[in-house]
Structure formats: structure tokens, C-alpha cells
């Protein structure tokens, strides 16, 4: 089933493949208005985020709720115009081509929603759900549409398709609903797929099945995938690189294994420490959690946005200046002042803690 030839691009490092999507200094700010008019400020949901996504590459964006990952996703889907910065798809600004341009761009992007039941219209049969995108791109021939629907349904393992074509979403199990959502995302043969917490609403046993299915589709079609999640324990099964977001900023970028084994940013370390693997010993110890909660995105703290919760924070630096990205290890960028050469001494404390992790 899996044609091995198509997985060949993995042989070349991601960075040597052409960039499919480039995000340049993206800012997604929402206006806050006083009494309905008069600008009262901005919710800075995404604040100066840049990255490249290459063809056939799967990346994960990880962060807590309210960190801006969904706003970033909405901007990439072309649903929210950015306040500033650019999103380039194959070198073209996605918002430059007007409505027609956006429409074409959206046919290149598949979107897998978080809650499959909420994402499927309850009064439409599976067949209508999958047919509509094809009608919208102008596939006139009914048989051609049906053939395409059948092919995609086989691919997401809703087989035989006849059993499902005339069913309505409520007649399907959670896993089957999510397969329909994936089929709908794949029906126009996109080059890029955005998956927003695709498995968080599903049971553990089904979760693995869907993750494996997504991975298989990604490899077969050489799809670029942006996998958005708050669950670090599933990213390893899916993505090549991980970006960690906190309060609207990407604070750490690294390849998956690199990030899981050698986290560098204090926030990433806290996230990893909070995740439990099933082990009876967990019940006998308390977990170390940074105090407080993520900051307001209207008035984020100056300097590093994590500094009020960070036990390694350096007075006079972290609370004043925004940290740049430091190349801390191969294929690893960390936005944290501790990795500035001047603070080698302060970094030692963090490194001692990281030593305990391994």
C-alpha cells in the first residue's frame, strides 16, 4: 500500500527542500474597542513569528491554550488577515491575490478540525460533505466526483465506501467522524494540511489509529503538515520539527528528538516535566510546576514573556529586553537570554536541572 518511492524526499534534509510556506514576522493582533468604538489596545495573539515549512515536512506547534497557536493557524489558513508580516505560499503572499487568490490558496490547503462532530454539518450525508468541495472547485461530472470520493474514503479506511456514503455524522463513531474530516481535507489533493488537535477529542485506542493514518497519508502524498497540539506526548509519532509557543511567541524550535531529549528553554522544560508516562511511582511525588498563569496578551510583560514565572530569570535582562533566538545546539534555536555568552554562569543552574532529566 505505502509506496516507498514517494517517501524518498525524506532522504534529503528538510532545509534543502524548497520552502512551501514561509511565515515572515507574522503578527496577528485583534483590536480591542472601548464601548464599540475607539481603539483601546490589541490582543497580541501572535507576535512576530517567522518560520519556513518545506514540502513534505511535518511540523508540530505546541503550546497551552491561549498561547496563540490557533490564531497562527487561522492566519495560515487565510481566515484572519495579519496585522503585520507576511505569509508566503510558494513565494506568493496569500493575501496579495485578493479573493480569487485566497480561493485558489485554500484549495491547496486541507484543514482537519479538532472536534469532528462540531466540524461536520449534522444535516448533510457523508457523500454531500465530501462532494461539496469538489463542486466548489468546478468538478462538473457527477461520476468523476463520486470516483474521487470513493478513492479518498478508501484512503482514510472508510471502506467499503458504500456503507458510509449515505450516513449522517451522528451515525458514525468518533473515529469514523474524524476520518470523514480527514477525507474532506484531502479531497482536493492539497499540498499542505493544517491539523488542529486532530486526536484530542478521541479515545486512547482510536487516537493511535488516527495518528497513524495521518502519518501514512502525509508520507504517501508528500504532504506538508502543520500539527497543532498541546500534547507533547503525541508529537513524536508525527512530526519532524517542533515549535514551542508561549504567549504569542515561538520560544524554541528544534527537531523532534532534539527537543524531547535536550529541551533548552525553561518553559519547554516545565512542559516536559508536567507530562506523565504511566508509572505507579508518579503517585508518590509532586510535580514541579512554574507558579502563576500565562500572561495577558493585551499587556504582555516586557522582555521575555515567561520571565515572571521563570525561576532562572536574570534581573535587568529578562524583564527588560526581548530575547533573540540563540542557536544553542545543532538544529536548535532557543529564545532565552540564558544562552547568551554573558550569562554562562546563570545557565549552569539550568543545566544542572537539565542533567537530572536525562
Amino acid at each position: 500500500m505505502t509506496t516507498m518511492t514517494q517517501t524518498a524526499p525524506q532522504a534529503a534534509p528538510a532545509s534543502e527542500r524548497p520552502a512551501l510556506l514561509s511565515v515572515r514576522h507574522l503578527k496577528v493582533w485583534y483590536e480591542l474597542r472601548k464601548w464599540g468604538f475607539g481603539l483601546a489596545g490589541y490582543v497580541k495573539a501572535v507576535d512576530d513569528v517567522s518560520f519556513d515549512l518545506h514540502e513534505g515536512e511535518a511540523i508540530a506547534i505546541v503550546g497551552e491554550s491561549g498561547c496563540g497557536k490557533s490564531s497562527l493557524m487561522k492566519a495560515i489558513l487565510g481566515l484572519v488577515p495579519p496585522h503585520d508580516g507576511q505569509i508566503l505560499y510558494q513565494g506568493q503572499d496569500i493575501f496579495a491575490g485578493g479573493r480569487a487568490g485566497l480561493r485558489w490558496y485554500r484549495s491547496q490547503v486541507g484543514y482537519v478540525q479538532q472536534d469532528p462532530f462540531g466540524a461536520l454539518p449534522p444535516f448533510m450525508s457523508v457523500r454531500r460533505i465530501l462532494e461539496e468541495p469538489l463542486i466548489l472547485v468546478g468538478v462538473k461530472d457527477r461520476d468523476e466526483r463520486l470516483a474521487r470520493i470513493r478513492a479518498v474514503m478508501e484512503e482514510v479506511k472508510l471502506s467499503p465506501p458504500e456503507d458510509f456514503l449515505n450516513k449522517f455524522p451522528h451515525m458514525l463513531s468518533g473515529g469514523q467522524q474524524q476520518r470523514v474530516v480527514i477525507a474532506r481535507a484531502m479531497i482536493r489533493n492539497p499540498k499542505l494540511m493544517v491539523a488542529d488537535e486532530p486526536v484530542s477529542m478521541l479515545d486512547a485506542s482510536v487516537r493511535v489509529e488516527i495518528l497513524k493514518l495521518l502519518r501514512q497519508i502525509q508520507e504517501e502524498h508528500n504532504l506538508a503538515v502543520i500539527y497543532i497540539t498541546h500534547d507533547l506526548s503525541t508529537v513524536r509519532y508525527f512530526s519532524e520539527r517542533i515549535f514551542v509557543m508561549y504567549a504569542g511567541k515561538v520560544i524554541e524550535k528544534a527537531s523532534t528528538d532534539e527537543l524531547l531529549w535536550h529541551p533548552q528553554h525553561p518553559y519547554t522544560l516545565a512542559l516536559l516535566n508536567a507530562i506523565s508516562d504511566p508509572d505507579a511511582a508518579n503517585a508518590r511525588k509532586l510535580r514541579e510546576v512554574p507558579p502563576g498563569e500565562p500572561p495577558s496578551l493585551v499587556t504582555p510583560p516586557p522582555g521575555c514573556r515567561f520571565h515572571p514565572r521563570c525561576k532562572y530569570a536574570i534581573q535587568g535582562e529578562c524583564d527588560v529586553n526581548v530575547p533573540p533566538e540563540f542557536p544553542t545546539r545543532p538544529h536548535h534555536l532557543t529564545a532565552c537570554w540564558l544562552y547568551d555568552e554573558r550569562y554562562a554562569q546563570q545557565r549552569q543552574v539550568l543545566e544542572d536541572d537539565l542533567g537530572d532529566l536525562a
Partner: protein
Amino acid sequence: MSGQPSTSAQPVLKTEDLVLYFRTTKGVVQAVDHVDFELDEGRAVVVIGESGCGKTSFAKAVLRLLPRNVHAYTGRVYLDGQDIMALDDEDFRLHIRWAKMSLVPQAAMNALNPVLRVSDQVAEPLLIHEKDVSREEALDRAREMFRFVGVPESFLSRYPFELSGGMRQRVAIAMALITRPRLIILDEPTSALDVLTQANIMNVLKKIKWETGTSYMLITHDVATSSELADDVAVMYAGQMVENADAESFFKEPLHPYARMLMAAVPKLRGDEDLEFIPGQPPSLLDPPTGCRFADRCPFRFDKCDQDPPLFLVDGRKVKCWLFEKDAQGVYGTQPAVATGD
């Protein structure tokens, strides 16, 4: 019961042959089917299983929080040795529910009354269940509980919408704690929360357990997080309890094939092993198979699986699977009479 390890301490909660069936337009749903279970004092049991396996219905059966379409509700529930199934509804409401057993419901953070200050909501159970407590005393206790679960005291006069999800969850826990119950039932207390908040709430629950000796029943589908609190593990499948063991041995090696496959499907942060999933779907509870309910999905299936297995006792653990018949030291509970051994 025969074969039961003799413990001098009385279990906090014990159910015998507990049955809860619902009536629907399509027929009778066997949500909780002959469950025998016990929980010792000061311990926490996690009830794990897929959605629709009856774990929430089990909690509701224990707390007697029943919907209108109950078809059958039978069996025995003992709380500290007292048969609480014998009480009438009013006695149960006055003396058991929230006085001795309380509940943190699923999505508790959305279950708070939006038009009441959180302090009033937390104090309310005390005013109802302890007649001689004045409003001031109740609010004082609420303040104490807030400190205990880590909500700043200044939040007392706030409304639920002014709190974050994690804080609201803590308020719901404070509400369950305020009457100093013997047992708290937590239904998916952290599944809607972020990892850091989740770890925080688990820390709070652990501290409460260590400091007050309260017993917990934690209902969840998240196996990894469940290990944060578990002393014992109970696995439910299709309305039945299929394995009940101490956490130490369960997380090392689950016995029941379903429990094993469930564990193999849990993603590990840094493991290398490939994840597996359980093929097929749980049976319909409208017309479940007569034999072992997992048989259709089980890789170890053999002839005997057409009969309903009892709960075999294997080294102090209970497993509802014919594979363990030979190793069993006996049979637990009031299962349909089956000869032990041969």
C-alpha cells in the same frame, strides 16, 4: 465473600452485584453490569476505560444520581459498612450524598452557577448538610478550602466567569471537599485542562489525599495522567469491571488482554516502541455478547470465551478473563456461579 483476602480494615466503598440499566427507545442499555468492587480507606482508585464503557454510569450508580429512564438499579453499595442502597432518597440526600461522598462532575469548571459568587457556591453544601453551621462559619470554611486548593482568597467574591479554567476546577474541588467527605468521586477532573494546569490540579489532589486521608475514585480515559493519583486501578469495558489491581503491579504488567492493549496504545513521551491500537469497536450495550464482551477484539480468544468469565483472583488482583483460570486462587464477588478451577 469466598476467596477474598481477609483484611481487618473495612473498605470505604464496596459494591456488590451493582446493576444500572437504562431504558431507551432502542431497548435496554446495560451501562453498569454486575460490578463488584471495593476501595480501602485513604486510597485512590482510578477507573479507566474508553468512552461509553460505563465508568460515569458507575459513579452515578454509586452516588444515586440517576436519570429518569432507569430500567433496573439493583445490587448493594456499602459505605463504611453501611448498606446505603437500603436508604430512601431523602435520607440518602441528607446523610450520604455530599455529606459522606461528593462529586467533582465532568467539565466541573463549566458546571458552576454563573450568577452566584464562588464563595457562596462552595459554602452551600455545608449550609445544607450541617444544620448548626451559620453562614459566616460556612464562608470561613470556604476560605479555608480555597487556601487548601490554592485559590487566592481574594477570588472568593468573584463570579465563575472571572476565573480561569484551572481556577474554576479548583473551586469545584473545594466544593467537593468542604463537607469533609469520606470519598470524593472525580469524573475526568483534568481532561479539559492544559498540561501545566493538569499537573497543578494533580498536585493539589495528592496533597489533599496525603493531608486528610480522603479516599478518591478518579474516573478517566487518560491512562498516563491517571497514574499520578492511582493506588489501585480498575478497568471497565462494556459495562463490566474487567480488571482491578494495585497500581504498582498494574502499570508494570496489566493482566487482562484489553488492559494490555489499552496500555500499549498510550503514547509515551520518550519511548521508542511502536504504538498499537485495538482493532474493532466495543460491543453495543443494547445487546452485548453473552460470553466475554471483549472476545471479538481479543487476540487470545479461545473456546471458553463464549461463556461469561468470573472475576478470577490472581495474586490479589482480580481479572475477568478465562486465561487466568489456571493461575487463579479463587473467584471474587457475586459473579454468576462458576466452578473455580476444574
